[in-house]
């Protein structure tokens, strides 16, 4: 399967006509001095794929070793992860519609990229997510209801990042790539063999911070894997508004490898991420993984994708659905029976119910939470403002009491 059609790389205002940075004039043909040739070669990227959309397992001598030991049970586990993540995500979307959440950023369509990469991490690894990595959070054992606090508006994150080595969601695009790199530098200093994985989107690749992170990681040879979920859209902007060439190629310019993986293939995502984490642990430094996937829903519940993209596109991608694909494989290989699917269905419903109930029971924060945690060691002005606020609040109580 090739997907290049959805990743057109023509520059927007090329007066020349040639696309993609290929220097085709007579004098532009020697490859070693100029990077032209390599760039040209790789504008026709090949995805790493281990499962076709039809669920057929295809051999890949390079990455097969990373999933060699995988059992039918493991496969069912990955399937279960994806199904439950999707169920959780759907529940959150509907909770937003019911007014229980202020906003939701759905991962619909990106389950394989997230579960595959998330399951590749080791317990002592550390994850730096964006705001959409609900599936990765699931793999890390973060209680999914924890993710909902910020979308409900009761906190700005708030879970303990060190509880599951899963950092807080970061909204300012790209910032966390540097945090991940710094954390990874710390791992090296500690002499540990853990690794870090930093998630970001195709849009984020344009930010200075992400590129600085690439460079710091390369220079310090930091054990960090950059995992870019290219879901084809940054809100309303498609890939060609962010980049002239496929994103995985960016890594090369900083001196580390980049790989494009089929992000709708959970097995390939798992294998490639294991490869990258392994080499990071071994001290071979950073790698960039571009997981080629698709945001099947809106950017967030506030978004209206009909303004900027056609339905056909989504429909085409539905044929590559990550969950369907693994189900076909499981069924064809007789790795799962009706019982399994039935139980999972029930488990899904239970999860949905639990999430629904937990969200509805989530109390509004106490108003004094305004002043909590602005500082760790206290701040005189905050103390003063808190005291004034308390007196002000008390004045209402007095007034009411006095009536």
């Amino acid at each position, binding site marked *: 399967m090739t997907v290049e059609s959805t990743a057109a790389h023509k520059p927007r205002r090329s007066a020349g006509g040639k696309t993609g940075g290929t220097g085709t004039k007579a004098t532009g043909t020697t490859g070693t001095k100029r990077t032209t040739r390599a760039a040209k070669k790789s504008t026709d990227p090949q995805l790493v794929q281990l499962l076709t959309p039809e669920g057929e397992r295809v051999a890949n001598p390079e990455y097969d070793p990373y999933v060699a030991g995988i059992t039918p049970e493991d496969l069912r586990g990955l399937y279960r992860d994806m199904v439950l993540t999707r169920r959780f995500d759907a529940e959150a979307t509907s909770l937003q519609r019911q007014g229980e959440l202020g906003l939701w950023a759905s991962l619909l369509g990106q389950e394989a990229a997230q579960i595959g990469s998330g399951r590749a991490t080791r317990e002592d690894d550390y994850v730096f997510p964006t705001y959409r990595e609900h599936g990765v959070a699931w793999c890390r054992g973060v209680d999914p209801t924890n993710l909902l606090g*910020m979308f*409900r508006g009761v906190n*700005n994150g708030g879970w303990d990042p060190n509880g599951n080595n899963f950092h807080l969601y970061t*909204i300012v695009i790209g910032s966390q790539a540097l945090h991940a790199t710094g954390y990874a530098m710390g791992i090296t200093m500690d002499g540990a063999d853990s690794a870090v994985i930093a998630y970001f989107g195709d849009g984020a690749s344009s930010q200075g*911070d992400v590129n600085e992170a690439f460079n710091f990681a390369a220079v310090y040879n930091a054990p960090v894997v950059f995992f870019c979920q290219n879901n084809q859209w940054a809100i*309303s*902007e498609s890939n060609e508004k962010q980049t002239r060439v496929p994103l995985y190629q960016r890594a090369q310019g900083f001196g580390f490898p980049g790989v494009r993986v089929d992000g709708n293939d959970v097995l390939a995502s798992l294998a490639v991420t294991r490869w990258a984490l392994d080499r990071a642990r071994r001290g071979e430094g950073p790698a960039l993984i571009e997981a080629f996937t698709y945001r099947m829903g809106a950017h967030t519940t506030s978004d209206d994708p009909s303004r*900027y993209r056609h339905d056909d596109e989504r429909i085409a991608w539905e044929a590559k659905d990550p969950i369907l694909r693994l189900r076909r494989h499981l069924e064809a290989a007789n790795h799962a029976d009706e019982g399994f699917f039935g139980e999972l269905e029930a488990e899904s419903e239970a999860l949905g119910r639990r999430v629904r109930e937990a969200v509805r029971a989530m109390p*509004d924060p106490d108003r004094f939470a305004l002043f909590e945690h602005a500082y760790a060691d206290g701040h005189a002005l905050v103390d003063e*403002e808190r005291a004034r606020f308390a007196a002000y609040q008390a004045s209402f109580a007095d007034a009411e009491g006095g009536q």
Partner: protein
Amino acid sequence: MAEKMALAKAINESLRHALETDPKVLVMGEDVGKLGGVFRVTDGLQKDFGENRVIDTPLAESGIVGTAIGLALRGYRPVVEIQFDGFVFPAYDQIVTQLAKMHARALGKVKMPVVVRIPYGGGIGAVEHHSESPEALFAHVAGLKVVSPSDASDAYWMMQQAIQSDDPVIFFEPKRRYWDKGEVDPEAIPGPLHAARVVREGTDLTLAAYGPMVKLCREVADAAAEEGRSLEIVDLRSISPIDFDTLQASVEKTRRLVVVHEAPVFFGSGAEIAARITERSFYHLEAPVLRVGGYHAPYPPARLEEEYLPDLDRVLDAVDRSLAY
């Protein structure tokens, strides 16, 4: 001919007018094209003026402002959109060290007619970084002008004037007022961009505000009127420069001043206003200038923002405290 329209629509019309009348005007930003921006302020502009005039940019605020500077050097007049207040910071370096200083660095030989539009402020129940009021961080920087309209008509006209200005203008749009409607007369003759305006006359105390807080001050004045108190409201409109003459005249009449803004009080606009008005009108003040604004804490999650933002009661409380002197 005056027409009633929402504040967001007024800006849209103003941008449209500028794009029509001056081929050098450009609109740039994330999602400003087909989507029309997340608030639809640029709705329909790319369709009518094309991708070369209404430009979807890569997701990189420093890049947006930095290339806008280059376009201005080439003779263009870019109007740049920052998607939300909290996302202006990646562009802060380009704004502070380049945009603000280029004209002076060149001893006047180049101009920087760049408008940076920033939907700002809270009250819409948004997630982190989507509700902040960072205007003080721009007002402190020489070389920038900083304005914020409070209604549709000002939004229309101040945008026209900001685009015509040869100086960089940071244009703070009160996002929670985007849907508020008001009369806009595109044939009116507007007052100066940096003049404050007395939007309600009164005798007992002056309320000074701008952007989203002007509407709140009107409600406060109404409530106070019911208690027999006559409040004057000055809509500052411009935060750099501040029209201290108009404000001083009001304060010397009412002898009391309360400044209201959403931004944190500490080092906020209210501080500068209090300091300067106290210096200008020391013997006229019956009470210290009081300030109502945000607390010295990160903007809270949505379920707490009503506690954080100035509201009717908090402003009335400050009015009471001032009148008690």
